[in-house]
């Protein structure tokens, strides 16, 4: 079957529109950065245009010797999900390094500030005691 039934076409178009609306809303409300939205826009567009590229998926399924077209589409869907997870892991690693550097920098700065304040207090006390002994 090289074309989709009408109900399936409509369902995929509605899913695509729904996903695109959600992504736009997440970007608008600053819950999702534009740089991370690209893949979701692509997925939404794929859903929207499902009826158009479905015949290609049928030909590809026959070419690779797979059983049926939905399982081919499911396989590629899983593959894309894994790639997204991999990309997120890479991003988390980057953030881990950044957080580590930040915590270390803040901790060292806090320590140096405390040392500096203690040194100033000590100088102040010494100056006051010198002044008092001069007055006496």
């Amino acid at each position: 079957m090289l074309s989709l039934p009408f109900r399936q076409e409509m369902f995929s178009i509605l899913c695509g529109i729904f996903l695109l609306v959600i992504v736009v809303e997440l970007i608008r409300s600053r819950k999702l950065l534009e740089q991370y939205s690209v893949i979701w826009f692509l997925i939404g567009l794929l859903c929207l245009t499902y009826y158009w590229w479905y015949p290609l998926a049928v030909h590809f399924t026959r070419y690779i010797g797979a059983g049926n077209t939905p399982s081919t589409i499911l396989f590629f869907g899983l593959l894309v999900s894994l790639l997204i997870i991999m990309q997120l892991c890479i991003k988390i690693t980057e953030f881990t390094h950044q957080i580590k550097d930040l915590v270390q920098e803040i901790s060292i700065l806090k320590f140096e500030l405390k040392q500096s304040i203690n040194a100033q207090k000590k100088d102040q006390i010494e100056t006051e005691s010198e002044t008092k002994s001069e007055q006496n």
Partner: protein
Amino acid sequence: MKQFTDDNKVLIILPVHNEASNLEDFLPNFVPIAQDLNADILAIDDYSSDNSVNLLASYQIPTISHIAQMGYGIAIQTGYKYALRNDYDYVIQIDGDGQHDPRFLHPILDHLKKGAGDIIVGSRFLPVTDQQLTPWKKLYKGSPVRRIGIYLFRAILRILTAQKISDPTTGFIGYNRKVIRFLCSNCFSFDFPDADMFLILIRNHFKIKEIPVYMYPNHNTGYLHRGCKPIWYVFKVTLSLLISSIRSRET
């Protein structure tokens, strides 16, 4: 307690996380020895929730406190970064859990100053020849999982570097300034800085020398030794060793 001054060039780093009960026994022995060395001490408190920080303050030991718990590796790297910023020539790291005998700070520093190596490693597996240094208590053997890990790391290091390091998981190590600068970079393996760090250091042409030290059991089992952590530790360090062997030399 010796003043914390900028003129001193030796820094002893003491990473601490909830070690109050161990510090009570450790500090009275450690502090006088560190003072003899004319070294500065810097404790790195990794967000302890017990009395560790107060105990360190009672001995007037300057302490950098992490604003969140980051782990042992990051704690010691904080110490390295401080040492680099403040132009220390030598750094010796010693654990605050009482495992490391502070009497061996002297020989580690001596070897560093003589240039015997860029890194002086305290090994629990080498025999102590100094007759005057007898152990204070029963020496540390390690849990079965830990011992398997040590033998495995030793073997992998030997195959990959042709260098024999008898104690690749020791935390009792001294470094010179060149190594400190290197360890402050992102090359530092901060989750479990053990055998894989030795591999990276050897591949970057740093000279490692081992000397014998005494190590004692920690009577409070640390968080690294509980549950499945030892198994994860062996897996992670083995993986890191194998991956590090195919990395290019760090610049």
